[in-house]
């Protein structure tokens, strides 16, 4: 019969020699299991004289504790090594490409339009749309164009028939709005406009135009400039400065073109964005708006111009060719 001490020594030796968790589990069964060697040794107790039993029991329990303790320690040591091996085995190359989901995105002009709308919405402007095939009356007459005026030279127009045409400016919405709504009002629209122009890098027969206007009491050039300044800074950046210069459009008086300058673009040169001014009193009077009480401003700008300036896009035609190598560069336009 083994003495408890001899059993302990044998067990600890075997534990030291175990090379993996499975062997440890076997040793645990062999020594500490229900019919393991320590249990067997404990059964020897019955054959001992009474006076020896307590001390023998105590010695066996010490052996059990020592074996269990060493088993646990050894298991922890082995687990560290084994997991290290597992991690090596399971290692992946994290530099491989991700597993792509299919993600759609909006056209760069749509994203620009969305941002323009956000700015005007935040200023309380109502977004409306009007037809792309427009009556001459709204495109020209209602905007104070005198018949046969040379200003019409600038806009060689696609006529459908004698009266209807592809609108040359989204400003054509103004007459339609004034027929239905009374001031105070703040309205804007964004849409396609058409000019019978030869197509090249900076000219197209189609482009998108914003037209925004408000009529209220106390609206003057300073309010126009304030609104445009806020708009330009929201769209392009806080470091944008705005410049007004006299210009002529039949539907505004005074009329200006506005340019922006930012250290980010074109070395801070002035870049013209669009036309603006106070809504011509002839128009207000035509729609029976009290010009003693109300005045208004209006301004327009080309949507394409904004990404062209912001990203240095060199050719207007890219916007309608739908080459995904172009479009995907702008899949997530950030706000400046």
């Amino acid at each position, binding site marked *: 019969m083994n003495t408890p001490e001899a059993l302990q020594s044998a067990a600890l030796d075997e534990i030291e020699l175990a090379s993996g968790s499975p062997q440890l589990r076997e040793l645990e069964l062999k020594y500490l299991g229900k019919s393991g060697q320590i249990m067997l040794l404990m059964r020897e107790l019955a054959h001992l004289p009474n006076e020896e039993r307590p001390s023998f029991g105590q010695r066996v329990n010490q052996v059990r504790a020592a074996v269990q303790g060493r088993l646990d320690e050894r298991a922890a040591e082995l687990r560290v090594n084994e997991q290290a091996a597992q991690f090596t085995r399971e290692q992946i190359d994290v530099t491989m490409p991700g597993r792509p989901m299919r993600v759609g995105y909006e056209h760069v002009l749509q994203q620009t339009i969305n941002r323009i709308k956000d700015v005007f919405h935040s200023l309380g402007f109502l977004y409306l749309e009007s037809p*792309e*095939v427009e009556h001459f009356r709204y495109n020209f007459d209602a905007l104070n164009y005198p018949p046969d005026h040379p200003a019409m030279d600038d806009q060689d127009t696609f006529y*459908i*028939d004698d009266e209807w045409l592809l609108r040359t400016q989204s400003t054509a919405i103004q007459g339609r709005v004034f027929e239905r709504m009374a001031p105070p009002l703040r309205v804007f629209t964004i849409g396609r406009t058409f000019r019978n122009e030869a197509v090249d890098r900076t000219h197209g027969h*189609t482009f998108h135009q914003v037209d925004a206007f408000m009529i209220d009491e106390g609206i003057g*050039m300073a309010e126009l*400039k304030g609104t445009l300044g*806020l708009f330009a800074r929201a769209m392009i950046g806080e470091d944008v400065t705005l410049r007004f210069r006299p210009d*002529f459009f039949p539907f505004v008086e005074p009329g200006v073109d506005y340019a922006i300058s930012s250290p980010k673009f074109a070395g801070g040169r002035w870049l013209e964005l669009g036309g603006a001014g106070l809504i011509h009193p002839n128009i207000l009077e035509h729609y029976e708006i009290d010009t003693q009480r109300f005045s208004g401003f209006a301004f327009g700008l080309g949507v394409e111009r904004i990404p062209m300036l912001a990203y240095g896009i060199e050719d207007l035609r890219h916007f309608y060719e*739908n080459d995904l190598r172009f479009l995907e560069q702008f899949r997530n336009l950030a706000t400046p």
Partner: protein
Amino acid sequence: MKFPYLMLRDFVETRLDADEVGELLTMAGFELEGIDSVEGDAVLDIKVMSNRGDGLSVFGLAREVLAKDSEAAPTDLYKRACLRFPAESDHLVADGAIRIETPDCTRYAYRVFAGTTNAVAPDLIQQRLRQAGMRPISLLVDLTNYVMLEVGQPLHAFDFNLLKGETIVVRRAAAGETLTTLDGVLHDLRDGQMMICDLDRPIAAAGIMGGAETEVSATTTRVLLESAHFESRSVRRTRKQLGLNTEASYRFERSVDPEGVVGALNRFAELLALGGGGFEPEPGVLDVYPSPPPIRTVKVRHSRAEALLGITLTPSESAGYLKRLGFGVEGDGEPYSVTIPTWRPDVVREEDVVEEIGRIYGFDRIPERLPRGTTIRGGTQGALKTVDELRSQVVRAGYIQILSHTLRDLHALDARGERIGPRQPAGPDTAYLRNSLLPGLAEAFRRNGGRDLHLFEIGKVFAKGPGQGGSPVIELRKLAAVTQGLLYPPARPKEQPPLADFFSLKAGLHAVLNRCELSPTTSGDERYHPGRAAAILEPSSKSVLGYIGQIHPNAAAAAGLPADLCMAEIDLDGLEGSTTKVHYRPVSRNPAVRRDITVTIAKAVPYADLERALRLATGQVLERLWLVDLYEGPGVEDGEHAVTFGLQLRKFGENFTDEEANLVRDVAVKALFELGGKQR
């Protein structure tokens, strides 16, 4: 307008160099297009606004420089130009020598010069004309051009000896008359075109171009120098009809100062004398002026000017600005009275005068201020908001938005119906208004490799009208998509992602289609595969909003597209009023039970009918219903298939017992039997 900087200096003493003058004019509304060095001198190219004909002369631009640059001073030449070059010569009564027979000629004057040799103009004149982009021709012609450049008044020299009779008649052409213009082109004149005529025939197109038959030449010894004023509309109409565009017509179409007519003749005589050419003026200017412009005054309120400009300034400041521009200012009350100079027909009402004050004050100095006023509900509302929402939902489903041209040529995927387009398109590319978004999508699909693409567009398409308000077109907002190939790119070798088909497109367009019903028909639309397409119906009216389906193989071949491409096009305007309602149900905390049922049934019975029958039969306790298996083959008759549904059942507040669940299952099976299903 191009002119050498030194010509401006003839009129203005200023310390500003050419660049600075360009900047000043730009900020006054006369935009500098560029400065070139021509023959050693700076030449400014200025873009003149279409309503500012007075800016089409060096004198007119000098006025702007003097108004904006308070340190500049007028030269003697400028002062005499203001006085219209007063001359000693008598003002003769025309006495029948000029007959104006049309109201489109407001003034006609001429002076006769006699001499020997129409040789060459002085070098300086020739050089400056070249710098301004004009070709020196002869002494007489060059001086007319030079005076026009200086003061903006077009002049024309006739060889007086070649005129029939000594009478000038300004009248409308009669049909059948002809005129050969200086450029050698013979024009058949139309009734109503304003002509300068002698007693026999037209000798010049009024305000546009002289005739070849009376052109001055090297042998000319007697010259009739015309200086006149014509109505812009008449000049514009005639020059368009004749297909001409000249320095003269350009100015008359905008505006020319009728009061400067005689001054220009006098300036011509001055330059002729200075140049020492062999011509001397005969005494007297003949001048017929049937309709001098009325003296116009505008009442201006100083407070109004301040309010519209958003600035404060003293009344004397604004009066100063106006006077420097040649306006008369009378009184200092509220309102005060402003007399409009004859060269400014564009200034008509108070706001126009306010603009002048602002221009000289400087629009760049106006402060920025945000509007105060009535708060109104803004934003995008109603149907327009729906369009925005649908767009972002289709994007979220993985489709890329494109924008294609409204104007285009014909395409195999055009919709049916009579086409409409501009009556004068720029070319075949702009001949038609699109009547479908599918052609643009097809082109984008091909451009980007022609496979594995999922694209959509939202935009207007046009059908032949009559439309709203008598429009020749019906304008419809559509959403269309094309999809084909791998639904997502394979990330690793040998991976095979699923392919796009009718059902992936149907799911992708769920945001739109869940407001609609599908009906298995293409209504004969030859763009869609008749067995794999459906009409999209507005649920209440059952009107067709569009189609969804696989492309017809013939259309695919014609359009150069793969035959497994699927596409859809939907009228979004027709969706208006459709809304998706939320029916909230509290979430049950009781466990669910599942029952599967299998029946064999004719394949002709649509899945939707089975689903509808199951939902109707099981009611509220049916939490989820899905297709578990679809089988055809051995053990199932031809034309039939075995369908297995999974039913997830749950009650609120109590648990399902097995018996209850079986009861629901039996009801469900019975519902399918009623549709022709049989026990498997």
